[in-house]
């Protein structure tokens, strides 16, 4: 029974085809970027005595220009905590995102910074996670993608693989996480989920059949907001596998990893 990744990896698709697809993306993407340009530029006015403009997106890049109070700044795009800006005189450089706090927008207010974490919830955001753990004594690896749609609730899909000496287990699940105290820096959560498990026994002499079963689980964990957009995460899950024999199986798993919020 091929798992999710096997379908993609072991199918007829030659790796070169992946390269071709990505290369065609290279050609198409810039066109898209150009065509979406005519939206009006985002402009702010400097409200502090001055704002330093750096040559690159990092604290080490030298300051080559200074924009004074009341002068406008056009916000081009943002990358890794830095914003590329253009001055009234056409100079292009970078300011840290926190520099927005030294400016005012057209309505005379300071632009609202996007909170990704335990501060006030300012809107839904994605959460990509990588976790390593132990599933019934076997090292497991998991990747997940979730969406936090209210201050308390996050929905997530996760793929887990545990390769042991006796079997190779793959789990796909969908879960709902509830953060009890979302504004705490170290924030506990509970979760409920359901999914499918595929268990391939690893045997050389006899070849037992692979098993594919439905599962449900409950879990609890802790998220620790370490930096903007970065969360350390640990959780415990208790699975129930609904096997075909009239005998449900329990599995336990510990996971530790991190999530990126974006």
């Amino acid at each position, binding site marked *: 029974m091929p798992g999710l*990744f096997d379908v993609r*990896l072991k199918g007829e698709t030659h*790796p*070169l085809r*992946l*390269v071709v697809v*990505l*290369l065609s*993306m*290279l050609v198409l*993407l*810039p066109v898209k*970027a150009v065509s979406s340009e005519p939206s*009006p530029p*985002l*402009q*702010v*006015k400097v409200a502090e005595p001055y704002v330093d403009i750096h*040559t*690159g*997106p*990092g604290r*080490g*890049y030298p300051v080559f220009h200074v924009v004074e109070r*009341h*002068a*406008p700044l056009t*916000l081009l*795009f*943002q*990358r*890794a*905590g*830095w*914003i*590329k800006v253009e001055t*009234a*005189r*056409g*100079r292009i450089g970078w300011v840290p995102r926190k520099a927005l706090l030294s400016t005012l*927008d*057209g*309505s005379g207010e300071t*632009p*609202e910074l*996007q909170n990704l974490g335990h501060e006030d919830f*300012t*809107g839904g955001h994605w959460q*990509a996670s*990588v976790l*390593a753990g132990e599933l019934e004594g076997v090292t497991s*690896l998991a*990747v997940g993608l979730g969406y936090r749609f209210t201050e308390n609730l996050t929905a997530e899909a996760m793929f887990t*693989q545990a*390769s042991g000496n006796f079997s190779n287990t793959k789990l796909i699940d969908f879960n709902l996480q509830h953060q009890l105290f979302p504004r705490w820096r170290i924030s506990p959560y509970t979760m409920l989920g359901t999914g499918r498990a595929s268990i391939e026994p690893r045997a050389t002499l006899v070849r037992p059949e692979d098993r594919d079963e439905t599962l449900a689980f409950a879990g609890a964990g802790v998220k620790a907001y370490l*930096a*903007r957009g*970065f969360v350390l995460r640990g959780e415990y899950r208790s699975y129930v596998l609904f096997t075909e024999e009239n005998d449900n199986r329990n599995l336990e798993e510990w996971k530790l990893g991190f999530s*990126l919020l*974006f």
Partner: protein
Amino acid sequence: METRFLPAVLILPLLLPTAAMAETADDTSAVRDADPESVLDPQIERRRIKEADIDSENFEAGVYAGILSIEDFGAEPVVGVRLDYHLSEDVFFEAVLGRAEAGETSFETLNAGVRLLNDDEREFTYYQASVGYNLLPGEAFLSGGRTFNNALYLLGGAGITDFAGDEHFTLGVGVGYRLLVNDLIAVRVDMKDHIFNLDVLGEDKTTHNLELTAGVSLFF
């Protein structure tokens, strides 16, 4: 076959328009033409701006190709795809999926007819998640008027390697160099060690599989 793509991958960014370069050219005229009044009393659109309204380009997707030295099975061409997320100026995260085809061990070459692995088992596929740290960010100067942002970074991560009919937990450590051709396109060179245990040759041993790749990626 795969190696023929390598030059194409490297040449591509040079063919694409390098829009960001243009900015330095008209600097002097902009200074001369600027009207002081318009700078001091700018008319900006009356609208509320949130940070979330600014176009964010924190993701990087790309392809790479190079050589993977599979311990005991020779050095073979490898191709892969990568997806990165740049969290801050220091830290980024990367997911990769790569594939190579293992060659013959010297034992198989010397003993004609002996096959340790079948063709399917010789396929070397890895997927891995890593954390990257931009150790030495900076500017590179091509000529007087052209500067490129670049960085030397360290990578460390874990993943799974599907090889020799089995899936192996793998540690990956590496070092790489990224040069931004413009705001959109980066050229990268990576050197990485894939470390996992393999028992194909009788005993369980830790193998080091060194990979040297060059690639191009796009920010979006």
